[in-house]
């Protein structure tokens, strides 16, 4: 993975941005990459890259909503568990 400390964010190319992106997202913690001041100039100059960042943030944020379960196993699962525990 890329060493972010060596990156010149203002002069990087789109190809370099693509290369750094996984690490940039991973190092961002709970902050939004689209609001990272280091990237402000680059994203303003590259609207497609800015749109990409926003889309990936949207996907990651919506994924958090999937954490709450909406599915339930059939009653048979507990019946089987009880049966096996009694054995």
């Amino acid at each position, binding site marked *: 993975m890329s060493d972010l400390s060596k990156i010149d964010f203002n002069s990087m190319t789109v190809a370099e941005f*693509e290369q750094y992106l996984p690490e940039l997202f*991973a190092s961002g913690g709970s902050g939004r990459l689209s609001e990272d001041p280091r990237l402000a100039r680059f994203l303003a100059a590259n609207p*497609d890259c800015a749109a990409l960042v926003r889309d*990936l943030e*949207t996907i990651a944020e919506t994924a958090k909503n999937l954490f709450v379960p909406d599915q339930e*196993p059939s009653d048979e699962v507990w019946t089987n568990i009880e049966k096996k525990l009694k054995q």
Partner: protein
Amino acid sequence: MGFQGLQTMQTKPNAGLFKRNPPIAGEAEAIERAKNGDADAFSKLYALHKRRVYTLCLRMLGNVSEAEDMTQEAFLHLFRKLGSFRGESAFSTWLHRLTVNLVLMHLRKKGLQLVSLEETINPSEEDAPKRDFGSRDTQLAGSVDRVTLERAVASLPPGYRMVFVLHDVEGFEHNEIATMLECSTGNSKSQLHKARLKLRELLRYPDQLPEAESSREVVQ
């Protein structure tokens, strides 16, 4: 199924998971009673956690029958291992790690070589995200709803789906995922990024997404 060698991960507690797994009323008491063999208390633990465990299995496996089998295995394993739960992490976090490890072991037995992440988690050329991901053609029109994202996740190649579910849905850190999948943290980061790029592509045309098996389930 043998459980020799299966270990619950002992990593430093993940603050995010604690936050997302607040204590459930009556859970601590049920855990203590179940540790002493109280069947009703174990039944309560099942009732409290069956949906989360089942949903996790379903997302990782993409198959109702297998997900039910693994839910059963997870709770049987829980019954055997409950005495070793020391409360260093939220109970549900501990249970989820146990479940993930069981599912991964199941997949390895089935022949999915998760160990060799580069080879098997990396999908074929046609499944991989396209290179022109910065172009306007691939941009999302706006927000993404939960149901559509669920269908898109179900359409991901298994390796991408695994890392995406573990990180973005379940909240595991890259170092935890790397340990579970026996790969490098760099690889986990890279696979997650590719998974999100692939989802972006899939979400551009939500009408073309197949119905997820999980969404065909009727919640009882």
